[in-house]
């Protein structure tokens, strides 16, 4: 790191350092806490049952679609790996039971259910 960068960081760090120097003034944590303007809960009760399961599936679907860069509705092993869905890449042969060389989201769900997932 450059000297210039060090100086800049020192300047930025000073208020924090000064506060921390006085240990008794160290702030006490308040976790969990949110700023006043955020203290509104959802107007709907928490999801349960089928709507909860659908939320879970949506999360998996989002990962699937993020990797499906060509919007083909299916992932090859390589696409899954490059797209951050390592789980699909690692388990590809077990998901791709029909040996199509690519797997759909339904293939993934079928595999997860067979594996014991409550979806």
């Amino acid at each position, binding site marked *: 790191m450059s000297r210039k960068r060090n100086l800049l960081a020192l300047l930025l760090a000073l208020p924090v350092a000064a506060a921390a120097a006085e240990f008794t003034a160290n702030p006490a*944590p308040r976790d*969990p806490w949110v700023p006043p303007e955020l203290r*509104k809960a959802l107007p709907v009760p928490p999801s349960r049952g089928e709507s909860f399961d659908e939320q879970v599936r949506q999360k998996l679907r989002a990962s699937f679609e993020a990797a499906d860069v060509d919007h083909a509705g299916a992932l090859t092993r390589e696409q899954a790996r490059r797209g951050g869905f390592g789980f699909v890449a690692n388990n590809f042969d077990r998901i791709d039971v029909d040996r199509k060389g690519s797997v759909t989201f339904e293939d993934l769900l079928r595999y997860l259910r067979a594996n014991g997932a409550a979806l």
Partner: protein
Amino acid sequence: MASASPRRRALARAAALLPVALAASALAAPPNATVVEYYRADVDHYFMTASPQEQAALDDGVLKGWTRTGQTFLAWTDAAHAPADAQPVCRYYGRPEAGLDSHFYSAFTDECDEVAAKFPLAWQFESAAVFYIQVPDRTSGACPGATMPVYRVFDNRRDANHRYTTSTALRVTMQANGWILEGIGPGGVVMCAPQPATAAADVALTDPTFYSAGPTGSLASAIDAAAVTHHAITLGGTIIPYTATAGHLTARGLGTGVPEASFFYVAYTADGQDPGTRPVTFFYNGGPGSASVWLHLGSFGPKRIATGGPNASLPQPYPLVDNAESLLDTSDLVFVDAVGAGLSEAIAPFSNQSFWSVDADAAVFRDFVFAYVAANGRESSPKFLFGESYGTTRSAVLARLLETAGMTIDGVVLQSSVLDYNSNCGVVSSPSISCAGYFPTYASVGAHYGLARPVPSDIATFRRSAETLAIGTYAPAITEFLQSFALPAPAVLNTLVDDTGMTLDQWQSHFNLDPGTFQNHLIPGIVIGRYDARVSAPFGDPLARDDDPSSTVITPSFAQAIQSYLTTTLKYSFPTFYVTLGNAINFWDFSHDGHPLPDVVPDLAAALALNPQMKVLSLNGFHDLATPYYQTALDLTRMAGAPIEFRTFEGGHMTYLDDGSRPLEKADVRALLRTPLTGGAP
């Protein structure tokens, strides 16, 4: 006769047959097994085992009556790791029907064969190789270099018990008690155990970097460097040498490799363990914006700050002591600070604030875990996450992201959970949110202060009835109240008064009772703690300054101790201050799934969908007014059928600070860490 020691004859007969011990071995892997000795007083028998499963069964009392003697020596689990001249150690079991009920071990194959041949009925063959170890010269009893002799003594009784020890003092004592020295040479040597690694030299580090915890904090570049120091701790009678690594590691974007943040971490790794089977657990606090100092120096690391909680009147600063409940006997431990806390900082072009959101924070933690695993060869180690408070929010998202990215997580420990911010009426303070989930906590606290009527004769029964009241009576009454402002019948109100000690006036004016009101009105003139409601202070007292005496009383000790502990004990020096609590919470983007506040129960469920073998352990304190245990139980019921272990302890948010609860909590976490693996990553 079975009463004779099987080995004496075998050794004498076969001594000439064995080739002279092979030349000192070529380089071998460090010893990966600890042979632990046990004693059972009622039969005056010694037993030893290198098997972690057997040790667990003996330690946990599955096999009753056995206690550790404190004597151990090192060995290898298998031939592949052992030096070329190491020998398998056979084990025979003397049948109880023959009056024995005792085990016999030998590192000489010919002696093993002799036992089988001479005593086929009395001594039952159990294993050809319970561990691997080097052997002495068959004539002189001399051990090869870098090993130490293991002596064998025989009780000279019908039950034929043997003891194996590296201690000459013990050998002499046993002989004085009538035990017969066996083995080769004047010392009676039967095995040669590797010397415990002589402490490698410590590597101190003076880190010149100024770390900033502010929102714009952004390092121009970062170097992965760490101080490495060597220590030992005695846990359950066994000395565990360990290495502490304190420094920085760069997290890089998944798939992109772009540097994101320089994470500060302290890793404790037990020496000489097999990374293939040794678990590694990642710990972090929450906030968001908190460093991991609370878990690091309060819970299951090798040192802890002895707060003596809930007693708030002990002299300060509290001492830093060896932690008898450290999990280092079971898992390697990595304490890591969030970006903008402790000494962790973003790397340009990112700034700390780039990672101050629910999703970006979890993603950069994922990238840290990948970086740590790759840098330390922990790919095949069982992996666990241990988060507290907001750290449980992080864990749910992080577990999903790690599983999605292809890293198997074997278990998640949720210490004092906030999995759905929308369900906690102490956080959202929205009049439309029911506080019913807090009621069992109010009742526990009322009982603690002797305010519950009638005085509970059995606290567990009392709590169960408070839980039933919360869900069966109080919750529906709140629903009614929120719709029509109608209070329930006086009989119901009186039950609430009796269970908690809050007055009828209070219940009438604050029927949907929030924890802040409870803290300030349960006892006139007194504020009770939020994190641990058993701690209290009069209004105006210095401890009441931040509305939470339980937090105010412990914070200075933790802030001071981490600073000197890092510098002095871990030899990691730095020019700035370790930021125990940054300002991230005021900048944090709490949104998740398109909603303003996070509900991460579906994230945890998604992680479990990807890995149904992942274990989840929820730890909760009865006196925690920040994350009420019963609300957490209700939140978790949304994952219908998920195999979640739910535990409650005496204590507040940081149950591990309670001297009675910490050992119980450790036992639960230890059981999780030891759960047999069911396949792991393909």
